[in-house]
């Protein structure tokens, strides 16, 4: 538990073809380097889970790693569409992509149920929307005390949960701060987990707003400075907003995307890429 290893070894050990894999990080601390390593290792038929599939999922989908996407908002934030995602959904390129679509509140609660060892979560949500008819993992549930009808969603329990954090200590305890999203829930809900970190330190001094994941809750840790780029790691890096803008052009065209993938992901080791 909390074993420190290389990113390549961690992905090889934890992520297998056909797995359900969640890479989380809400704008902040997105584990992009881990996603690139999954592409480099050529994983296939993955069910990818993520509230906000953005650039790294566009890349995974365009590289043909995914069979299915479970999500609540698929876009390039502040820029526009995810062209590889759209191409997969609308034209089945490079492979057809099955989708299971939720709202943020529903996805967040699905992780909560997974982290809590419950088969489902209850929320006020979805009622009156057309999502109910399209998504089988949305069901009505009646309060046994008041008779009120609410909505149930099933737990998410990914085979592998991957997040990026600022730091870990040598014992494998992880610390992250700033916008912490659903990272704790993702790690706790997943059967296996990987945390990439900006740095490994001797001691995690307490910080305001920090979430700590004890070593025994994490399977593998890899030190990957800049591993969240083009998203950011508060205290370590700034968001690369130009990259998000540039992605719109690169991703619009299959050939441009394929060239980019060859040059920037497949043709590089993790050390070169970060």
């Amino acid at each position, binding site marked *: 538990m909390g074993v420190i290893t290389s990113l390549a070894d961690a992905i090889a050990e934890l992520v297998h073809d056909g797995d359900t894999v969640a890479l989380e990080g809400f704008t*902040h601390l997105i584990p992009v380097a881990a996603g690139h390593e999954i592409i480099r290792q050529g994983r296939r038929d993955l069910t990818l889970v993520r509230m906000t599939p953005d650039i790294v999922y566009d890349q995974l989908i365009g590289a043909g790693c995914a069979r299915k996407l479970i999500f*609540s908002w698929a876009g390039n934030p502040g820029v526009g569409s995810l062209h590889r995602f759209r191409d997969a959904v609308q034209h089945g390129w490079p492979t057809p992509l099955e989708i299971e*679509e939720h709202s943020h509140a529903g996805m967040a*609660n699905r992780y909560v149920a997974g982290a809590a060892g419950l088969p489902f979560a209850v929320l*006020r949500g979805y009622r009156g929307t*057309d*999502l109910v008819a399209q998504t089988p993992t949305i069901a009505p549930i009646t309060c046994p005390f008041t008779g009120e009808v*609410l909505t149930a969603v099933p737990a998410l329990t990914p085979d592998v949960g991957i997040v990026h954090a600022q730091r870990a200590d040598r014992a494998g305890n992880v610390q992250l701060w700033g*916008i912490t999203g659903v990272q704790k829930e993702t790690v706790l809900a997943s059967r296996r987990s990987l945390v990439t970190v900006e740095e490994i330190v001797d001691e995690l001094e307490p910080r305001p707003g920090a979430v700590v994941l004890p070593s025994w809750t994490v399977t593998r840790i890899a030190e990957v400075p800049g591993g969240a780029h083009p998203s950011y790691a508060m205290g370590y890096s700034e968001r690369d907003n130009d990259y998000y803008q540039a992605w719109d052009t690169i991703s619009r065209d299959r050939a441009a995307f394929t060239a980019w993938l060859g040059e920037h992901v497949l043709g590089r080791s993790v050390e070169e890429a970060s």
Partner: protein
Amino acid sequence: MTAQATPTPAGVADWSSDEMMTIEAARALRDGTRCFVGIGRPSTAANLARRTHAPNLVLIYESGTIGAKPGRLPLSIGDGVLAETADAVVSVPEIFNYWLQPGRIDVGFLGAAQLDRYGNINTTVIGDDYADPKVRLPGAGGAPEIAASCREVIVIVQHSRRAFVDRVDFVTSVGYGSGAGDRERLGLTGRGPVRVITDLGVLEPDPDTDELILTRVHPGVEPEQVRAATGWHLAFAPDLATTAPPTAEELAALRDLR
């Protein structure tokens, strides 16, 4: 969102219709209001309000930042400046479960790809077939529950027949469903979309039917021009008014923000 260089009608002062829309949206936020803010125009308008007439506006972003006081316009919903300046930063499950869901938020601020005569919003797919869409849009995000649970919802969207449709292709977020009484039947606790602010004017629900009607036009805009840009036969309010033009202070604050 960058300001558009849309030419303004002759005789009207030097501002764009996009600026008018954003300023009018900012004005809709009373000081002290708790506002759940989406990125893009809603965030610009909310931050403008905080710098002009509503310094105590409480900005809440779905990234978990409560009471953010950014010194510059945040570039994403999870911009570091939001966490650094917030009263509290909570997890994403918590922001939805403890803060949005119970109806603690006064105003939800949404955009839309399509919006219909009952204020229902589509951000999922264009086209009749969900499985084979004409255009695949980003999807729901936080919008369905913002639309359901905020005490009021304000929608900002550019006016066009493509966006303003008789019936949305897909109901991502419920406005008034198929009309008055539907929200109650669905158990939605908030009031629904009380105002739709566009680059041409302002739509509000008819008090009896909850159908959106034109209550205001922006300076230099003709009511028929708005009707022409709307995909249903847009009704005009009996007391149809004209929006006050942007003040120099509002324009300066908005341009400074961008």
